């Protein structure tokens, strides 16, 4: 006869579920020893025990009052283990589970799995230096300090006593030369190892020491198994995940497929209301997964993703339950975008040209005073974002972040200039997703082309230049994070291809050997216009130097009359 699998079940709540699970283990031939928390009222305990009295393989062990993080859980486990070993001498492996643990693979398969590994102890057991889980920021100190106070009930005393011990440099010595190990409290040990731990001649010393260790149920058996086991597989056969605050994750009905595919033997914690999980797994016939190895990787990934989402919001998302304080955001915007300053004024049809050569969505002046000039004259775009200037100006940052969030997947580009709302200048300049290409002084072009006399546009020109100068101060500050390029208008007029090429490469367009460039607007007489502004007492310095004098005599960079082709050098 092969050795049997025995089960210890720690129960403190959800008794109907615990009863179902206990019967399930017993039905597969496993003796079950149940420990019911002493805190459970006597009547409740008795009713539970009575309900299971028809099953000879289920017995109850001496009760302890259990409190999280304390020795009581180890004491309860020891007592239950002693009962199990003495009452059922044919038990080979002992599985420690709780009332919220659910076998998610037929128990027969677990029995076969263990029968094929009769000398192996399955217990997660790592030295303190290697474990990442540290609730309350305690690591090695779990062992070197003493913890007589309950973390959940007596937090102040707990913290104060820890602090005191740190001050006086307390260091408790491990008894008996033990090396502290930690791991999941849900293990499956061989009878030999478990018996050796319980009958260790130094057990009194061990117990005395661990009584003051913090969370000893994660370290008592994990440490002592290292002394007595013949062969340790340092992993738990129970999938049990913890969130970023150290609380166990809970499985619900919607995890059914995930749990099935994991081929793990036992999962915890199961939500007591998860009818579908209990129905499915407690009636499953053997033979589906056969001898397959458990593979919790998918479960690990899912919960890792959850932990990530909880602590790191999706970049560029501002929503009702995630609104980072300044400087705490993952990213202001969701994706890279381009702000073109002055290009639309200087190049004819630059928007259509950019759309064709980059595939990006190229808007007009999104922050124009009249309306948000969406691409193709749209009045409403993705996410039902409208072109209403009033709605946009009620919260310009929300407008920008919504636009980029709604259209993620396609690069957005928009025109900008000193006529537009300037309130986002800092936000955009500090956004690593922003690519800013600015031609300074281009605001003068529409004024020049309007045909209005310099005397009339002088005030407006001065205003636009002042606004642009303020923006340039931002762009040139050391605190920016955007990719920023600034040229004066004179530079761009001299070598227009260079500026356009930089814009293309910033927008991620493929390098093209030959490219048809958009045409510069007709600047015939622009130098004279600037001179006229100067004559009116204004000083248009942001345009750069344009030769002055009567238009007919100047040697200004004369824009070609037809599109030209630039070749790589």
């Amino acid at each position: 006869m092969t050795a049997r699998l025995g089960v210890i079940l720690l129960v403190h709540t959800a008794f109907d579920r615990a009863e179902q699970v206990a019967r399930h283990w017993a039905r597969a031939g496993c003796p079950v020893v149940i420990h019911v928390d002493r805190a459970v009222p006597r009547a409740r305990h008795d009713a539970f025990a009575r309900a299971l009295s028809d099953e000879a393989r289920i017995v109850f062990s001496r009760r302890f009052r259990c409190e999280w993080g304390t020795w009581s859980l180890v004491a309860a486990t020891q007592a239950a283990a002693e009962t199990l070993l003495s009452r059922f001498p044919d038990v080979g492996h002992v599985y420690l589970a709780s009332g919220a643990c659910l076998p998610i693979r037929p128990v027969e398969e677990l029995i076969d799995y263990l029968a094929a590994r009769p000398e192996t102890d399955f217990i997660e057991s790592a030295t303190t230096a290697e474990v990442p889980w540290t609730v309350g920021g305690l690591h090695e100190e779990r062992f070197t300090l003493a913890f007589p106070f309950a973390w959940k009930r007596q937090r102040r005393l707990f913290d104060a006593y820890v602090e005191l011990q740190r001050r006086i440099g307390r260091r408790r010595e491990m008894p008996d030369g033990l090396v502290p190990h930690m791991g999941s409290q849900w293990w499956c040990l061989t009878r030999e190892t478990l018996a050796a731990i319980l009958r260790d001649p130094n057990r009194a010393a061990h117990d005395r020491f661990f009584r003051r260790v913090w969370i000893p149920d994660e370290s008592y058996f994990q440490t002592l198994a290292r002394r007595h086991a013949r062969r340790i597989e340092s992993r738990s056969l129970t999938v049990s995940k913890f969130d970023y605050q150290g609380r166990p994750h809970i499985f619900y009905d919607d995890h059914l497929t995930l749990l099935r595919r994991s081929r793990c033997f036992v999962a915890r914690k199961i939500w007591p209301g998860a009818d579908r999980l209990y129905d499915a797994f407690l009636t499953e016939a053997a033979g589906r997964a056969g001898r397959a190895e458990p593979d919790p990787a998918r479960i690990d990934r899912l919960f890792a993703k959850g932990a990530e989402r909880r602590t790191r919001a999706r970049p560029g998302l501002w929503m009702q339950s995630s609104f980072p304080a300044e400087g705490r955001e993952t990213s202001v915007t969701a994706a890279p975008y381009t702000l073109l300053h002055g290009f639309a004024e200087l190049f004819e049809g630059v928007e259509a040209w950019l759309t064709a050569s980059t595939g990006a969505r190229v808007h007009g002046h999104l922050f124009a005073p009249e309306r948000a000039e969406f691409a193709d004259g749209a009045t409403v775009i993705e996410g039902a974002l409208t072109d209403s200037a009033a709605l946009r100006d009620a919260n310009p940052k929300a407008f920008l972040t919504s636009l980029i969030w709604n259209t993620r997947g396609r690069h957005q580009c928009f025109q900008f200039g000193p006529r537009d709302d300037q309130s986002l200048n800092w936000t955009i300049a500090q956004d690593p997703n922003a690519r800013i290409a600015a031609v300074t002084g281009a605001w003068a072009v529409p004024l020049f082309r309007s045909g209005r006399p310099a005397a009339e546009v002088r005030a407006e020109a001065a205003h636009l230049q002042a606004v642009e100068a303020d923006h340039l101060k931002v762009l040139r500050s050391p605190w920016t994070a955007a990719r920023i390029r600034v040229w004066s208008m004179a530079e761009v007029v001299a070598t227009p291809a260079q500026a356009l090429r930089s814009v293309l490469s910033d927008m991620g367009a493929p390098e093209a050997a030959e490219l048809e460039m958009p045409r510069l607007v007709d600047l015939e007489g622009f130098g004279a216009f600037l001179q006229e502004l100067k004559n009116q007492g204004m000083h248009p310095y942001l345009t750069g130097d344009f030769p002055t004098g009567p238009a007919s005599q100047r040697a200004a960079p004369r824009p070609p009359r037809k599109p030209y082709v630039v070749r790589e050098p």
Partner: protein
Amino acid sequence: METARELWLAYRLRWKRRRLLARAVRKRRQLRAVADRTGAIQPGDILAFVAVRNEALQLPHFLDHHRGLGVDHFLVVDNDSDDGTRAWLADQADVSLWRTGHSYKRARFGVDWLTWLQIRHGHGHWCLTLDADEILIYPHHETRPLPALTERLDREGRESFGAMMLDMYPQGPPGAQPYAAGDDPFETLAWFDAGNHFIEVQPRLRNLWVRGGVRARVFFADRPRRAPTLNKIPLVRWNRRYVYNTSTHQILPRRLNAVYDAEGGESLSGVLLHTKFLNTIVARSREEKTRREHFEVADSYQAYYDALMADPDLWCPASTRYTGWRQLEALGLMSRGGWV
């Protein structure tokens, strides 16, 4: 200096809360029990508090949905309905019903009445405070009923849960869409605005102020400061000392308003699907315009009601068709947080 101001504000808010509670206690006299089944409430039950007026059309689906989510008992105040709402509610085994003929507006839009019921019956329970045109959904709501959600919140140490309103609308004029009591309203109210909300922090009460959506787009494009507030905190582990400040947008004490993560992560949140734009909207707007019982600055809403009465098509080509909570989660309108 800053701390002194904060302390002074905290002090004033404490008195404001006490004032509001005292007011609710006074207003209890305006309520007459029609069907009081509160004796059936068990410890740990999840309760819903609702003030209604002529909601016979919406209530059957409203009750079914929230029953299905795991609400154990509904505590309803009927403000003078004349469409059979009262008789229908009184027949529901899990409803306790009170009636009042007093002014809804002067009862702080019904909040005073509900506050009194919450003082009496809500203490220690997770309480859901809703309007009859609000349908709560949250991540995994089909497989994880409210007790699973509230247990999760308890474990996170949270006492309150945020769910912003999402205005749902049909394609075509709302007045032309058929709807019969008990139907799934989202057969016709299948559309929403997915990405035009704007949010700011209101430092006084530490809540987020969310506005936008279809009503801002269609009715308030020229005066966004008046656009309706969409943030709500409908689910709270109640204490008899708590009180809603304005509708369920804000609550006191103000720590309960911190339903969002300010550290760069995402907290668990839900959405209240707003079924205001059923075909009754036109007649209702007409009535509300004359009753002037609805908003604090009723006059500035006249234009809004006029626009509603014209029964405009709210749909636009950029509207999004509703497919379920996963979609709203992916769009960033609500979040699973770490609840996977």
